[in-house]
């Protein structure tokens, strides 16, 4: 390749899909239709926690256009967890609820009908016999003795069991001696931070349409953000050869992380397998808000040991991630979170317990930087509080504590890609903030150019 061809960086390149978007020719999954399509609607739990005593389809079956219902007994491998692909386990979530429900909205049975209206009406007419159980909605309440237990392994937390052969009730980071740091510190700064769930609310709701092909394969037109991840999980759930599933996607009407769980495809493929007909399963706007995963709620307790000159010498964080009822991407979120609780700062003594907690809430999962954003929020508010306490400029305290290349991070990873100092210098310049000469002279690569 000649240098002449390498000319994209620094240029604005026209979007590959731009002409399709502005003419309305881009094909989203809802724009695809096939004759003889069946519509899938879910029967969902009206309660937060309970035992399923029975399901009565007799009134639903009378609805004109009703074709059939699917329950967990129809699903080859009903209990799954999507991150099994990277070794996370055990499986914890049913495709269709078996003996109990853990959140209001959980899918219990799938209804297939000749029209969307008939499927909706039939799903409404399914009678559920449920025995309601006490529910828990708070991460710290869920970890107390006597809380309703949601998981078959007897706890309400994800077990991190692949750390040095140990079983841990939380993601643990230990670095230096945090107690000694607190003893030496001039100040102790303690704070509690919380964040709320956020729904991605893509303009196009989650969905797929599945068509059985004459050669025995199934073509799955889906708006997933994770095409092969969804294919692999669907094949495992359906115990089907991977090559029998052909996933077609890439056009996503807004995702933001909200379309990386594997929820609509496996059951729609199963429905197509059972009926031999194309099947469409697309969330309503209400389902997108109430059923699809959210960004998690977090609660973080920070305790920092700080010197009079503004240096942070010890940090202890206990944090709680509300996974809702099931894993999805939560165990991974907590691991990312734990690695980022010290922020881009060099702190010699760190102690972190990050809990992945189950509650009877709508499951949370991926969303733009999930796990990291609540850490950044808490870290930076904490920096401002510390600056105020020691009477230091908020810029200066960040330069003073900034990590640099060659520093060790609390999770035992040497910093190789630090640019915090350079980014702050550029930000100061762009905002017209005049930095003192000593901060302007600092560098992520040159540790000799010390602050002060």
């Amino acid at each position, binding site marked *: 390749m000649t240098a002449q061809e390498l000319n994209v960086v620094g240029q604005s390149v026209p979007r590959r899909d731009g002409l399709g*978007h502005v003419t309305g020719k881009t094909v989203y999954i809802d724009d695809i239709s096939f004759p003889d399509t069946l519509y899938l609607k879910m029967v969902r739990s009206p309660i937060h926690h309970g035992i399923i005593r029975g399901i009565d389809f007799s009134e639903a079956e009378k609805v004109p256009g009703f074709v059939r219902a699917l329950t967990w007994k129809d699903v080859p491998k009903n209990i799954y967890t999507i991150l099994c692909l990277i070794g996370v386990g055990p499986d914890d979530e049913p495709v269709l609820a078996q003996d109990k429900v853990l959140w209001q909205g959980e899918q219990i049975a799938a209804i297939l009908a000749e029209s969307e209206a008939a499927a909706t009406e039939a799903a409404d007419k399914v009678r559920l016999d449920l025995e309601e159980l006490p529910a828990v909605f708070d991460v710290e309440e869920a970890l107390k003795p006597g809380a309703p237990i949601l998981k078959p392994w007897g706890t309400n937390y994800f077990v991190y069991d692949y750390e040095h052969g140990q079983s841990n009730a939380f993601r643990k980071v230990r670095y230096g001696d945090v107690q000694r740091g607190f003893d030496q510190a001039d100040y102790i700064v303690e704070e509690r931070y919380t964040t709320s769930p956020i729904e*991605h609310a893509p*303009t*196009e709701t989650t969905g797929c349409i599945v068509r059985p092909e004459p050669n025995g394969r199934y073509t799955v037109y889906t708006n997933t953000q994770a095409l092969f991840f969804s294919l692999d999980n669907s094949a495992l759930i359906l115990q089907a050869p991977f090559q029998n599933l052909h996933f077609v996607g890439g056009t996503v009407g*807004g995702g933001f992380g909200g379309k990386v769980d594997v929820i609509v495809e496996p059951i729609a493929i199963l429905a197509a397998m059972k009926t031999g007909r194309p099947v469409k399963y697309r969330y309503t706007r209400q389902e997108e808000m109430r059923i699809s995963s959210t960004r998690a709620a977090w609660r973080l307790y920070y305790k920092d040991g700080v010197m009079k000159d503004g240096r942070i010498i010890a940090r202890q964080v206990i944090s709680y991630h509300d996974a809702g009822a099931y894993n999805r991407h939560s165990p991974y979120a907590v691991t990312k979170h734990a690695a980022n609780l010290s922020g881009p700062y060099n702190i010699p003594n760190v102690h972190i317990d990050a809990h992945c907690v189950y509650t009877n809430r709508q499951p949370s999962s991926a969303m733009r930087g999930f796990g990291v954003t609540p850490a950044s929020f808490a870290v930076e508010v904490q920096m401002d509080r510390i600056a105020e306490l020691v009477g230091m400029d908020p810029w200066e305290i960040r330069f003073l504590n900034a990590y640099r290349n060659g520093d060790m991070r609390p999770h035992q990873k040497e910093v190789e890609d630090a640019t915090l100092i350079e980014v702050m210098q550029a930000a100061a310049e762009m905002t017209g903030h005049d930095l003192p000469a000593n901060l302007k002279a600092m560098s992520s690569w040159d540790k000799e150019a010390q602050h002060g």
Partner: protein
Amino acid sequence: MASRIVEFTLNGRLTEVMVKPLTTVQTVLREQLGYTATKSGCKQGGCGSCTVLVDGQPMMSCLLPAEDIAGQDVVTLEGLTPRDGLHPLQQAFVDNYAAQCGYCTSGMILVGKALLDSNPEPLRDDIIDALAGNYCRCTAYEPIIEAIQDAAGRMAASNGKEAHR
């Protein structure tokens, strides 16, 4: 209640459809006639992705009964697209990177069309007011506003007038 025939003009062509009572214009366009540039984001008048022009006015087709458009002039994004090339609004959306996922784009362009037809030299606040009913979840409002301003300039220039921006 019985179905009935509704006659209207769609993108300049006289069109007849047989509709059940309370069938929406969105359903007629997308499911009966196959005009899928009109999107379906919420079916409750909340997102604006299904916007069409009815006698030049932007309307959310998911809330509009098909019987109400009898005898009226309906324009969708398909109708705005010339046989060759693009409408200046479409070109401005491309050039200003005003489409990201694309799901709101159809509605945004049609709202822009209605605005520029009635107000060829809109102020920034006029554009913001016009877009108030249309969600973009990729947070691309700034490029959309810029695209509509840009299109206003192009259309004014092509009309032989000096562009005011």
